[in-house]
C-alpha cells in the first residue's frame, strides 16, 4: 500500500488542540532554530525535550508509525549525520573554519589523494545537526496520524490562505487514496501480463523506459480524473464567489498556552542569539577532551 499512515480519533491533549495551533507551533520551533541559526545544544536540548514530550502525548501506536520513523531515522542519521561528519557543510561556517584536532582521515577519492579530515568539531556538528533535525521531525511526524484530514482546508483558510489554496489541501487528501488504488491496480494489471519489476535491468534511461507501463496508465488515470473533478467542481459553482467554510475553528485556553509557548521559544532564541550572542556553534571543552 502506498498510503501507510492512518488518521484515528484519539482522546488526547494533542488532538484536542486547534489544528492551526499545531501548525503554528511547528513553524515557531522550525523558525526558532533556523532563523536565528541556533546551533547550541544547551538551547536545542530543552526544545528537543518539549518536542519529545508532545510526541508521547500524541499517543500514536508504534506499529502505525514505525515506517515513518524508519524513514526519518535513515534520513537524519545517515544522510544528514554522515554528510555533517564528512563535509561539515550545511551549517555555520565555523564548523569547518575553526581550529580543531583532526581525529582521522577518510579516503574519499584515494587515487586523487583527496583525504577528508574528520575533526572533533565536525563530529560535534553532526551530533548537533541530528538532534536539531529530530527536534523538528518529531513534532511533524504525529500530524498525519493525529490531524483530521478534513480539517486541513479550513485550517489553512483560517490562517489566511485563499479558497483555492485551502481547497487544494482538501482535494489532495481526498484523492491520495484514489491515486494509490489506481497505482496498485496498474501494478497488478501489468504483472498479470508478465511484467516483473525485479527484472528492471540496464542503464538509467532504460530503467525509466521499462517503468512506462506503470507510469503512463497512472498519469492517464490522474489526468482523466482531474478533468472530471474540474467539471464536477464547476457544476457545483466552485470559485464563483466568496465561499463559506462550514467547519469553524475556535481557540481554547490550551491553544493560547501552546501558541504562547511557541512564541516564547521563538522570541527567546532570537533574543539569546542576537541580543546576547548565545546560541552559535562552538565545541564544548568536555567533548574535545573525550578525544584528546
Amino acid at each position, binding site marked *: 500500500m502506498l498510503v501507510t499512515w492512518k488518521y484515528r480519533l484519539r482522546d488526547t491533549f494533542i488532538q484536542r488542540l486547534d489544528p492551526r495551533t499545531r501548525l503554528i507551533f511547528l513553524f515557531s520551533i522550525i523558525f526558532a532554530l533556523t532563523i536565528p541559526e541556533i546551533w547550541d545544544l544547551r538551547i536545542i536540548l530543552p526544545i528537543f525535550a518539549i518536542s519529545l514530550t508532545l510526541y508521547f502525548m500524541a499517543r500514536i501506536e508504534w506499529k502505525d508509525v514505525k515506517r515513518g520513523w524508519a524513514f526519518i531515522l535513515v534520513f537524519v542519521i545517515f544522510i544528514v549525520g554522515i554528510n555533517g561528519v564528512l563535509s561539515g557543510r550545511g551549517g555555520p561556517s565555523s564548523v569547518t573554519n575553526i581550529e580543531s584536532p583532526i581525529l582521522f582521515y577518510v579516503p574519499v577519492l584515494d587515487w586523487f589523494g583527496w583525504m577528508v579530515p574528520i575533526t572533533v568539531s565536525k563530529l560535534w556538528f553532526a551530533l548537533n545537526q541530528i538532534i536539531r533535525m529530530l527536534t523538528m521531525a518529531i513534532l511533524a511526524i504525529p500530524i498525519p496520524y493525529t490531524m483530521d484530514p478534513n480539517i486541513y482546508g479550513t485550517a489553512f483558510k483560517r490562517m489566511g490562505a485563499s479558497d483555492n489554496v485551502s481547497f487544494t489541501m482538501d482535494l489532495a487528501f*481526498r484523492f491520495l487514496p484514489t491515486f494509490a488504488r*489506481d497505482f496498485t491496480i496498474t501494478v497488478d494489471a501489468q504483472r498479470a501480463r508478465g511484467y516483473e519489476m525485479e527484472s528492471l535491468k540496464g542503464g538509467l534511461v532504460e530503467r525509466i523506459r521499462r517503468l512506462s*507501463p506503470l507510469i503512463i*496508465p497512472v498519469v*492517464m488515470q490522474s489526468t482523466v480524473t482531474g478533468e472530471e*473533478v474540474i467539471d464536477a467542481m464547476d457544476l*457545483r*459553482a466552485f470559485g464563483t*464567489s466568496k*465561499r463559506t467554510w462550514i467547519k469553524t475553528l475556535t481557540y481554547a485556553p490550551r491553544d493560547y498556552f501552546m501558541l504562547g509557548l511557541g512564541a516564547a521559544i521563538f522570541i527567546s532564541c532570537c533574543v539569546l542569539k542576537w541580543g546576547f550572542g548565545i546560541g552559535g556553534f562552538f565545541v564544548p571543552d568536555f567533548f574535545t577532551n573525550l578525544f584528546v
Partner: protein
Amino acid sequence: MSDFPLVVENLSFKYRTRPELAVENVSFELRQGELLLIAGSSGCGKTTLARCINGLIPRSYRGERKGKVLLQGRDVAEMEIAEMSQVVGTLLQDPERQIVASNVFNEIAFGPENLGLPREEIASRVEQVMKRLNIEYLHERETFNLSGGEKQKVALAGMLAMSPSILLLDEPLASLDPASAHEALAVFRSLADEGKTVILVEHRVEDAISITPDRLLYMEDGRIKYLGPIKNLPNEIDYTQVKLPAPWVVQRVKALDNAPVVSPRPEERERSEPLVVFEDVDFRYDEEYPFILQNVNLKIYPGDLIAVLGPNGAGKSTLVKHAIGLLKPTKGRVLVEGRDTRTMSVAQIARVLGYVFQSPTHMLYAPTVHEELEFGPKNLGFEPELISKSIVESLATVNMKEFEEYPPLALSFGQQKRTTIAAVLAMRSKILVMDEPTAGQDFANYTRFMEALCGTYDGGSSLLSANFDATLFITHDIDLAVTYANRVLLFGDKHVVADGAPEDVLKDVDFLTKYRVRPTSLLQLNLDLLPKTGRFLPAESLAGFA
C-alpha cells in the same frame, strides 16, 4: 415560454477538435416533473447534449454551438455558473470522480459552501437532503470507503443540496450492481414525482423503463431518431441497439417475421484434470482486517465458460486475483495446473491464466496497439515469429486489424477494451479471465463483442473455445450468464454459494435475490420456456418457442 423548465431549440454543436457535428438540430422541451429517458449507443451525442444542458458547453468545452438551450426561459450561455448550478444539478457517470471531499458531510455541503450561503442554512440543507435520501447513517463516513451505491447517493445528495429544479443524470447506473441500480432508479422516480424535472441519460433501457419514464428520446448520429412515449418503443427502435425487455424483443422478432436463429449447443467436453483448484481457501489482507474469502472450494475444468455473479464487495475480484497469483491464500491453497501458486511467480502463472482488468486505462500505455500487444508475449519470452503471429491473430479476433498502428489511448472506450482482450489473447494463455467485460460499453457494442467471443459456429466451437481451454468472467449482468455461460458461480458471504449449469443455479429466483442478484426479463422468459427449450437462449432465439 417559462411554462417549460427546459427548452432546447434547434441545437447543434461541433467540437473544435472534430470535423463532424456531435449534436445536430435537436429540439425538445420538458415539463415540470417530467422524467425523460435519453438513450442511444455510445457516440450518438447524448453526453454532448447533456453538456449543452448543464452549461459545460460552451464554458468548458469549446466549439461551435448553434440554437438555444433555455433554462426557465433564459439561455444557458448567458447565465452565471452559480445561477445555473441552482437550476440544473448534474450527476456524472462515475461518482468516484465527482466526490471532491473526504467526508460525507463536507461533500454534501460543498455546493452550498461555494454559493457562500450562511452556515446554518448549509447545515440545515445537508440535514434535509440526507434525510430525504435516507443516508443519515453515512454522516461522518469517509467518502473513499463507501460502496458504489452509497457513493452515488452521496453525490446525488451533494447535487440536491443546491436545490436544482432540473436533474441531469448521466449514465448513473454504469458503476452500480443491479440491486443498487434499481434502488437508485426508484430514488430518481420519486424525485420526479416530487416535481423535479429529471433527465436520465442511460443505455440500459430495460432497467430504466422499470421506473416508467414519461418519454424516451432516442439518438443516433447526433440526431433525434425517436421522441415519444415508451409504449411505442419496440416498433421504433432496433432491439440490437439498446437493451429492451426480452418479451418485447420476442414480439418484435415475430412481427418482423425474422427467422429466429438458434445457435448450436456448445460442444460438451469430458471432464478431465482440473486446470485450477481452490482448496479451502481463506484470505484476509492483515490480521486486523476481516476475512474476504472463507472456505472457498472450486475447480475450473477445460471447456468451462464460467460467469461469476454476486454483489459488489462479495470478494469476486479477490477470488480471481488468487487464481492469477496476485494474492496468495491466508489459509488453504490454490493450484494452477497442479502447482501451488505460492511457489510460482505471477509471470509464470500468466502463461496459464490471462487476466483482463475492468478498466482499460489501468493497462494501456504503449504508443501503438502493436506495441501494446507485444508487451505480454515479450515479457513471457516468446520467440519473435510467434509474437508477430500472435499479434496478427489476436487483432483479427477482436476485429481491430486496421488499428494496429493507432495509439491505444486515442481509441474509443470499446476499442480500448477490445485492445486489452487482444493483449491477453496474444499471450496465448490457456484460461481467459475477464473482470466485467462489458463495463463501459453500450449494449450494441458489448453484444457484438460477446457474440464474437462466445458465439458458437457450426461445429459448436466458439472463438473462446478455439483459443482457450476455459474462460471465466465476473459480471453484474445476469443476462450475460444466461446467454453465454455454460457454468455459473454465485458468490456471496465470502464463498461460493452456488455452482452449476446456468439452468440449475439461476432457477431459484428467491435465492438469487438473497444475494442481490436481480432476475431479469430474459431470465424469467427463459425459465418459463425452459420445458420447451431445454436450455437458456438469447431473447431473439426464444422467439421460436414463445
